[in-house]
Each structure stands twice: as structure tokens, then as C-alpha cells.
């Protein structure tokens, strides 16, 4: 039986990898992947904590819901990235800084 701590550690690792990708990558798609990783870390937590709710399986349910939402968000995000590329001919968020003072 894998302990809850093991899940939590994996989840924290995933979250940190995602966070690092978001902060450090120069490609919007990779950032999007980082977001997905963080989302999945959260979903993993939901599933792991789901064992305390065996009757309703609230954890699993929320996880499914979040996965669907994540897929939709990703679609929207990719569309935005596509539009950003059209506008700026780049998807490096570091170079899209026209809003600065």
C-alpha cells in the first residue's frame, strides 16, 4: 500500500516542475505544458485524498471534472497562443511586453 505521503511528494514534485516551467520557459506552449503539469499535481492530490470519501468518490469526481475543464482551458489557451503568434510572430512571452510603461 503506497502511503499518502508518497502521493503528496509526487504531487509536490509535479507542481514544482510545472511552476519552474511556467517561470523559466521561453515558449508559450511549454508554459502551457507547465500549467497542465501543475493542474495534474492538483488532480493527483484530489485523487489521493479521495480515499477519505469512499462512499461518494468526491475526489475522483472532482478529478474527472478538473480534467475536462483542463482540456477546455487548454483549447482556449492554444487558441490564444495561435492568435498571439499571428499578432507578434513569436510565442515567447518574454518578448511580448508592449504593455510595459
Amino acid at each position, binding site marked *: 500500500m503506497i502511503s499518502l505521503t508518497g502521493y503528496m511528494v509526487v504531487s509536490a514534485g509535479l507542481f514544482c516542475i510545472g*511552476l519552474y516551467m*511556467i*517561470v*523559466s520557459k521561453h515558449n508559450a506552449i511549454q*508554459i502551457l505544458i507547465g500549467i497542465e503539469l501543475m493542474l495534474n499535481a492538483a488532480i493527483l492530490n484530489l485523487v489521493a485524498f479521495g480515499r477519505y470519501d469512499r462512499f461518494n468518490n468526491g475526489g475522483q469526481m472532482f478529478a474527472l471534472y478538473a480534467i475536462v475543464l483542463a482540456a477546455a482551458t487548454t483549447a482556449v489557451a492554444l487558441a490564444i497562443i495561435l492568435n498571439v503568434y499571428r499578432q507578434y510572430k513569436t510565442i515567447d*512571452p*518574454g518578448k*511580448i*511586453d*508592449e*504593455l*510595459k*510603461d
Partner: protein
Amino acid sequence: MEQFLQAIDTQTIIFTLTAVLLPLLAFVLNITMRGRWDKISGWVSTVAILLSCILSGFVFARVWNGHPVHQQLLWFTIGNTQLYAGILLNNLSVLMLLLVSVIALPVHIYSTAYMKDDEHYTRYFAFLSFFCFSMLALVVVDNLFLFYISWELVGFSSYLLIGFWFKRHKAIMANKKAFIMNRIGDMGLLIAIMVLFTQYHTFDITQIFADNGLISRSVMKNGLWVSPTGHLPAIWQYIACGGVFLAVAAKSAQFPLHTWLPDAMEGPTSVSALIHAATMVAAGVFLLGRVYPMFNGTELTILAIIGCFTAFMAATIALTQNDLKRILAYSTISQLGYMVMAMGIGAYASSLFHLVTHSFFKALLFLVAGIVIHQMRHINDDNGLGIDPQDIQHMGGLRKKLPFTFIAAIIGGLALVGLPLTSGYLSKDSILIHAFEWADGKGPLFKLIPVFALLTTWLTAFYVARLIVKVFFGELRLLKNTPGIKLHVSDGSWAYKLPLVLLAAGCLFPLFSANPIEFTRSWLFKGFSPAGGFGAESSAYALLPVLVNSLSLLVIYWAWLIYAKQKAGSLLQRGFLYRLSFNAWYFDEIYNNGIIKPVLALGRFTFWFDRIIINGSVNSLARTGILVSKLSSWFDRNIIDGFLNLLVAIVRAIGNFARKFQNGRVQYYLFSMLVIILSLFILKILV
């Protein structure tokens, strides 16, 4: 009858005006036509003065011993004061009118020849006419205001003519000196006129000085000078008299303002004859005659003392001078001293009589001197000797070369000495006799005045004899010293001779009196004496002239011995008295050291004071101001601006720091958010 008289008077006034204005016209013509009329400008002036002379003769014939003519017009009004301009013709003014024009005529004729080669011929005649105008105006005007104007014009034209040869340094110095000395006198006259106006509220000469005029109705009471028109403190009367005296002393070269006249001889000789011998210098005596009633007894005595001292002093100076014209100049001062003294002792008629006769013989002597100097200059220029043509030590023996001039000089000289048959005898003896009469019954000190006057007569005889002997007798010393020089000497043309004849005629007695011995018979003397006045028969001094003249003859003989026969001559060339006389009693030195040098020193001191102290303080003030402003500028720039700049820098630094966060990079925002949240958490754990 009344109307007829008035018409005659008006005609007389018109004649007078024309006589006065003709020389002015000549002046204007000569000034405006300069360059075109150069040849005839002399004749323009001469014709003008000739016409003036004829008209003056008419006026004289009408007014002399008749009723005085006085007409005036309202000139202008200031406040309540009405100023009239007019002409006053009485015995005094018509006599002077005639005298001035009669002396001026021969001088003009003489000048046409004398100044012929001068490059400023036209300017000379313009000035000469201007002088004649001023002088004629001076004698006929009827109020003190116009009198003062003419007085200034006379002084100014004299100044112009003394400095006529303006390239000569000495001439410039001389005319400056004459001008300054005359300014002192003018100041006196101005003060006197102002005092009289304050007292009498009028400038009119008749109203003030007539027989029953304002002066004669004024009295001194309790230290006040009371007149019908008001009263002033008594001191003002003395100030007015002192002012008039200063004016007389400056114009007529009396001590202490006499030193300008010898220097004035730098002008052309013909000018010296007219202005500085015959007419202008007599203006002072004329002024005395005009304002005579204003002097009281003490003031008259002072006048007499000054006149007597001047006469004596100038005569002693004339004894040793070597410059022909300076001798005559000192002689003029001496004779003017006689006139002033005569005024002072109350011999009004004698003084004016002497004025007239002196004008003739002194003008004659100056014209003679002009001829002699002219010929000496010819000799000098022909032979290139480089001597002073006016120095009588080079002359001598000119009797044979210039016979005509010699005779004229003898007549003029005898008249100046005052020997019988000349006009000078009549006038000078009348002064001497009056002086003795006056001193009678006064203290012994008063006797000194006639005694010195008498001494002066003999001194006059001596220097005149010395002059004539040195110039005309003996051998030409120039020829003796530098033998072999060429001499082309002659009396000159008719333009030289005619004036001499005219003036020489005026030096002899018939012009003035049918009787060559008694001055009281002279028409001129009678014209100024009250009826039934002084008679020689009543005088205890009737025999005085005999004594005077016999001694004069002795003196002349003595001078002849000394200078012609060269006996006892060297005795006089030494000693303190000789030096005193030769240096003109050191008056110039005294004035130089006593007045001019201190004044110049004062000027230099004030200049120094101005430059160092006043300018210095202003400059140091300026420097202090600059320093202060520099300091405040530094303070402004560094402290005040610096403070503001510091604020700005701080704000900018903060701003720059803050804007680093606004770099528009999404990831960075996220990262900073992360850092903040993490630090919050860490803080929370730690605290």
C-alpha cells in the same frame, strides 16, 4: 513847438541807432561774405564806422549841452517787472559815442594797411566791427541790463582780438588771462546790478542815477539803506559799490586786476590802439561816470587811493620795460589810474576830460608803435635776424628813417607827459590841481595822493623820454651789432599817415580849448561842470602847472642825458628797485604763487580725491556687490538647486527602482508574486 522838439528827438534817436547798428551790419556782412569779399572787407568796416562817425557828430552837435534825450520801448514783462529797452543821450553818452567812433575811424583806416598781408584779414575786420558795435551800444543804452550785455560783448570782442593770432601760444595765454580777469569784474558788475535792482526795482539808469533820482533820495539810517522803494541792510550798499569797483578794476586795469592789460598786447597793434588804450579800457571809467552818485565819501576816497596807487605803480614799471608795447600798456594803466583817482577825488569833469584826451594821444602812440614794429619786422624778415621786433634795445636812430612817424610820436609823447600846448596838459593839470584842492583841509595822509600823482607825472615824463630817445635818437643799435644788414624802411602809405595826422590833431589844444593854458575854459570841462563851479583863478594852485612842467622838462633832459648821451646809465640797471620795476612789482609771480597755483593744486587735489576716494569707494562698493552676488549665486546653484536636485535624484531612483517591476513580462510578474508569497510564508514560519 513841443511836437517839433519830439520829432527832432526821434530823429536823434534814429541817428544814434543807425550809428550803433552800422558796425554790426559790417560785422554780419564780413562774417557771411568771408572768402568772397576778402579784398574789400576792410573798406566795408571802414565805411560803416565812417558813417557812424558822421552820425555821431550830428547827434553830438544836437545833444551836447542841450536837453538829454531819453526814449524807451517796453521790451518784455516778467511778473510785475517791466523791462524797457531804450537809448539815453546826455553829455556823457554823446561824448563817448563821438569819441569811440572818432578814434575807431583812423584805426580802421590804419588797419587796412597794417593787416593787409594777414591771412585772416576778413575775420579781423569782422571782429573789429563787432567791437565797435558793442562799445557804441555800451555808451548809449539806458538801463543796467542792456549795459551789462554790452559790457560782456565788449569784453568778449576784446578776448577775440587779443587771441586773434590764435596759433601763438602767448596770445592764447594772454586772452585767457584777460578773459578770466574780466570775468571777475563782470561778476562784480552783475552783483551790483542785482543789488540795485533789489533796492530800486528798476534797471533804468535815469531813474536811479539822475540828479533827483532814487539814489539821491536814499539815505543810510540806523544801519539800514533806506530808499523810496524799500530798504536793505547797509552792507548791501557797500557790496554794490564793491561790485562796481571790481568791474571798473577789471575793465580799466586797476590794481589788483591790472595784470591782463600788458599781456593783452599780444593782439595786433591796431587793436591795442583802439581797444586796449583808447576805448574799451575807458569803459570802466565811463561806468564810474554813469553810476557816480552811488558812491559815498569813504568809497570815493578808496577809489582815489586805488587809482593813485595804480598810476604810480604802473608808471614805475613802465620805466624799465624793454618791450615797446608793454611800456605803452603800463602807461595806459597809469593814465587810467589817474582817471579813477580823479573820479575818487570828485574831479568828475577832469576825469572824463582826461579820458578823452588820453584816448587820442594813446591811440596815436600805439599807431606809431605799430609802424615802428612793422618796420622792425621787415628788417628782421629781410635779413633773417630772429630778433624780437618789439624790443626797444634793438632800435634807435629811426628819427631819420621815419621822420613822419617821429613827429607824430613827439606830439603823442608830449601830450602824454602833459606839456603845454597839448591836450594832455589841460586834462592832467586839471586833475593835479583838483587833487591838491581836495587834499586841503584833510589829514596829512591825504596829502600823499596829490604828491604821488605829481611823482607819477615826472615818472611819466621819464619813461616817455626814454622810449622816444631809445627808439628815435642815437644810432640804430641793430646796425651797430650786426653791420651790413639791408634797410628798406619808410613811413608807409597814406593809410598809415592819415590816421596819424587825424589823431595828432586831436592831441593838440585847439580841439579842446581856445586857451592853451587854462583847462577851465575848455568846452569839454565846462560841459561836465556845474555852472559857476571851479575856476582856476580862485585856486591857490594856479601856479602848480608851471612847477610840474618845468620839472618835467628837467626830467626829460635827464633822460636824454642818460639814454642819448649814455651818461649815468649803468647806475639804474642794478638794485632791488630796478628788479622790482622790471618784474612789474612781481604781481604775476604773486598771483601765480598765491592764487593760480593753490587753485590748480586744489583742482588736482579734488581730481585726486574724485578719482581715488569717490571713484574708489564706488568701485569698491561695486566690487563688494559683485562678490556678494557671486557668493549668493554659488549658494543658489549649489545649496538650493542642489537640494532640489537631490530630491529629484531620490525620486528618480525610486521611480527607476519601481519601474523595473513593470517590464511587461508575464513570467516575471508571476515569479515575483511567487517570491512574495513564499517570503510571506517563510516570514510567517519564522516569526
